[in-house]
């Protein structure tokens, strides 16, 4: 074992602290304080075990108060060199997260949660690449490389099969890298074959290609894995304009829209409570599958008036409802009768182990997004539930795990609607029916607490609203320390990831995506190259 890679640079020694409050580390005078950074990893060499921790704060200390009143003459570089690390010194706050014991059995078992603290004056080192690898695993058939820790080259890997057993979240301000990270995670899931994916792609970024601020465009899933990804669209015209060939055009029939779907749109369609109430009345009158058509069919004044009286619906509620529903009527993918069963088509692909991206085309309006995602998910979920229940009773296979990706998650999961929507149910029951969510949001405080706390692995980029930060870190141990770390993230491509699929919280610079090099690393080969390879193989044959 090479000495320099096995041990990081020595930084200082433990001078105090507690298990709950973190360790105080006095920096050696040779350690330049300005090169320290919160979020970075250190290893504390205790007497019997090694503690793996994260720097959560950096402080300046002086041994004598007088020194701060009459500062030494540090314009003199000699005096400056002498006083740093002696009369004045740097201090780190280190939160120990895991212990790695020295003996062979514990090495095999891997890192364990900390239950004690290192003794006084234990030396503290920078974590070496090997330490990080020991904690986060190596890229292999289960571990997918998502990024590198601060100032290190080591790969931080996500345990994908573990990851998909829970619903997960990606948060952060707009433009920080949520879409890029989500795309990487999806690629990880496709590569490791751990789950089928259904992606509600609001901005047409995941399927064929996505935009980037730097490179012209980045490849979507379909380009990387053409045989494993099916591209569905709500808007054939937009796809054609973008020269994207799609596998299926989704239509939704009036009969597929249930009162609950409209209730979910109360806010975006500007509907009043009585108007929603009226929808349920209509459904009772016309039947679940017929109510919307029945409503649109009301033609004469008399007919309408008669119905309203019968259902005890107020004239103003009716007008409110009418305005709202007319907006839906204008959507071209909504038709009285869909020519095909979209849900069935999606399930067919998923059953073949493929992944489905549903592009929204020009329908980037949140109303459409919520409506369509909710309708399709509800029915797909019903199917999964049925199959799971059957699998439990009879000896048939359980359905392949399914991960559903949604953006603007707070629209589905806010406290008012979370109880009713299918997404709220999925998020809460964990993996009972082999379906989990991957939620993306820039306003996590809008998501119901109870659902936030059910998310297994969370990745958060920079957030600047206090409420959002609190919501993301809710229930996490070492919250206040992580808060400091979170607030110091860079504006882009740097995320704090923590939870279920990782042994400890980690700040990563997310893996670069969009360069030819990055596609190659993900196993992608250009057509020209494939052709050349094929030709060579043919040549070899003869």
């Amino acid at each position, binding site marked *: 074992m090479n000495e320099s890679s096995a041990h990081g640079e020595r930084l200082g020694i433990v001078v105090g602290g507690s298990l709950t409050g973190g360790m105080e580390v006095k920096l050696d005078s040779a350690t330049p304080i300005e090169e320290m950074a919160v979020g970075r990893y250190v290893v504390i060499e205790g007497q019997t075990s090694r503690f793996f921790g994260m720097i959560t704060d950096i402080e300046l200390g002086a041994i*004598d108060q007088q020194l701060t009143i009459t500062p*030494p003459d540090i314009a*003199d570089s*000699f*005096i400056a*060199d*002498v*006083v740093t690390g*002696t*009369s004045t010194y740097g201090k780190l706050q280190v939160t120990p997260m895991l212990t790695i014991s020295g003996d062979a059995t514990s090495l095999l078992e891997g890192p364990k949660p900390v239950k004690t603290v290192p003794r006084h004056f234990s030396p503290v080192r920078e974590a070496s690449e090997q330490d990080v690898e020991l904690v986060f695993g190596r890229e292999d058939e289960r571990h997918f490389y998502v990024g590198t820790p601060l100032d290190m080259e080591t790969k931080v890997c996500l345990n994908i099969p573990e990851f998909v057993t829970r619903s997960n979240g990606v948060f952060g301000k707009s433009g920080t890298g949520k879409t890029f990270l989500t795309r990487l995670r999806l690629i990880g899931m496709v590569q490791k074959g751990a789950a089928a994916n259904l992606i509600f792609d609001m901005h047409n970024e995941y399927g064929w290609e996505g935009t980037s601020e730097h490179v012209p465009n980045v490849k979507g899933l379909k380009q990387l894995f053409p045989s494993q990804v099916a591209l569905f669209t709500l808007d054939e015209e937009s796809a054609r304009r973008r020269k994207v060939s799609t596998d299926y055009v989704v239509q939704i029939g009036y009969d597929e829209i249930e009162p609950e779907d409209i209730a979910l749109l109360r806010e975006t369609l500007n509907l009043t409570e009585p108007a929603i109430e009226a929808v349920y009345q209509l459904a009772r009158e016309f039947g679940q599958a017929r109510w919307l058509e029945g409503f649109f069919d009301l033609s004469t004044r008399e007919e309408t008036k008669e119905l309203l009286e019968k259902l005890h619906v107020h004239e103003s509620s009716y007008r409110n409802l009418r305005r709202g529903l007319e907006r839906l009527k204008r959507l071209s993918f909504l038709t009285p009768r869909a020519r095909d069963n979209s849900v069935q088509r999606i399930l067919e692909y998923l059953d073949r182990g493929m992944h489905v991206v549903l592009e929204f085309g020009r329908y980037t309006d949140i109303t459409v997004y919520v409506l369509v995602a909710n309708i399709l998910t509800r029915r797909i979920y019903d199917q999964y539930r049925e199959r799971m229940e059957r699998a439990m009773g009879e000896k048939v296979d359980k359905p392949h795990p399914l991960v559903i990706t949604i953006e603007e998650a707070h629209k589905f999961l806010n406290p008012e609607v979370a109880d009713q929507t299918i997404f709220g149910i999925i998020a809460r029951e964990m993996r009972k029916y082999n379906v989990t969510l991957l939620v993306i949001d820039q306003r996590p405080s809008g998501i119901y607490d109870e659902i936030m706390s059910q998310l297994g692995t969370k990745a958060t980029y920079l957030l600047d609203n206090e409420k959002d930060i609190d919501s993301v870190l809710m229930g996490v141990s070492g919250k206040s320390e992580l808060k400091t770390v979170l607030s110091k993230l860079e504006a882009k491509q740097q995320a704090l990831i923590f939870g279920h699929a990782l042994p400890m919280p980690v700040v990563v610079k997310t893996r670069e995506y969009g360069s030819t090099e990055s596609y190659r690393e993900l196993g992608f080969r250009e057509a020209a190259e494939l052709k050349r390879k094929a030709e060579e193989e043919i040549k070899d044959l003869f």
Partner: protein
Amino acid sequence: MAARIGEVIEASTGSFVAECYDLHSPPPLGSLVRTSDSEVDIFGVVCHASTESIDPGRRPVARGRDEHDEENIYRQHPQLSRLLRTTFETLAVGHRQGDNIYRYLPPRPPRVHGFVYLCEPDDVRRFTASLDFLTILLGAKEVTADEVISACLRLASCAYDDSRAFLVGAGKELAILLSSDLNRLNSVLRRIRQ
């Protein structure tokens, strides 16, 4: 060979006094010298030097009123160099037994008439590889203790290629030892800064 500069004429536990073989040529203040008590080498740091009449009852008198040149006085009165002598005092700061150097007081003071040598750069580096002896100098009762410390460090630094690094290291040691007396620390640092 290290230069032999004198002989011990008075010895006690923490210090010894030596007479120089050459009048008016004591080792510089703060320099590291060495003598022995037959078994151990004893290191001392020069903390004081003086030139006086050999006979305490007879103080020298001024003789140069009519001379143009100081040197002429000694030429005219050759007996003077035998009536005067230069002595220096050192603080014992450590000792060496075999290959081991200890930076604390030797078990016994040196013998009177023990030869005193000025340490060579090699010895200086070996002895100052650890600065534990600074506590002895800091604790000395001499009013000039700070002068002795700074002179000692300045001279020792000349034995190193990177004398600044040595002085910074020494400064850090002092900053810890003098953490409760910043004024004193500052005054020493000002004397050794480079």
